[in-house]
């Protein structure tokens, strides 16, 4: 939960597209793609202010 008066960042990722003709293997690939992308974005969001802070100091 963010603190009041803190800074927040929203990061939108590249869309994940699963076409209508996608079979089970393709769906699994897309599921993994979504999972990986969400984890990368979340990590990036978590690092966003830490990195800025250290840049400001350096």
């Amino acid at each position, binding site marked *: 939960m963010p603190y*009041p008066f803190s*800074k927040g960042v*929203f990061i939108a990722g590249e869309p994940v597209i699963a*076409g*209508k003709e996608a079979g089970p293997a393709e769906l699994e690939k897309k599921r993994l793609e979504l*999972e990986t992308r969400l984890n990368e974005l979340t*990590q990036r969001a978590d690092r966003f202010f830490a990195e800025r802070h250290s840049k400001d100091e350096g």
Partner: protein
Amino acid sequence: MKKILDKITLAVVPFLAHLLIRFLFLTMRFTYINFDSYRKMLEEGRQIILAFWHGRLLMMPYSYPKKGITVLVSQSRDGELIARTVKRFGIESVRGSSTRGKFGGLKGLFKAIKSGRDAAITPDGPLGPLRCAQTGAVQIAARTNLPIIPMAFGASKKKLLDHGTRSLCLTRFQKGCLSQASR
């Protein structure tokens, strides 16, 4: 007596949660990254499926700069609290499960999309494992031919919720996945 307490909880918690989230939003300063193409899609009236991890749910009402989104929320009691809270932001909800590929729970979301609404889903919720995407999100994307927009939120100062509070954000059936991203 328990029934009365239940009713009070269901009325009071969403009211307070909504106030808290609005208070946070009003006092915080936000940066939006990669929002240009996302906003453009929405402005052009293209429908989307918004996806975010269950653990980052709290501020997500503010990640969608439009009206007309329906979110899939679990049928549990916690789900009821979430549904009532987001309703105060003008967000509709359908109740069901996105987990373990049960398309049954996705029917409501499918209907909402058919009626022209955008959709939101937590691919790892509500039963987890945390940060493991279940198949529901991509199933509905394939069936409706809509793009999934992955969305994340971070804050400069935050408090990780303790176990008790996190029952709202669950840890049941945890195995793997969580370690892939920092908490």
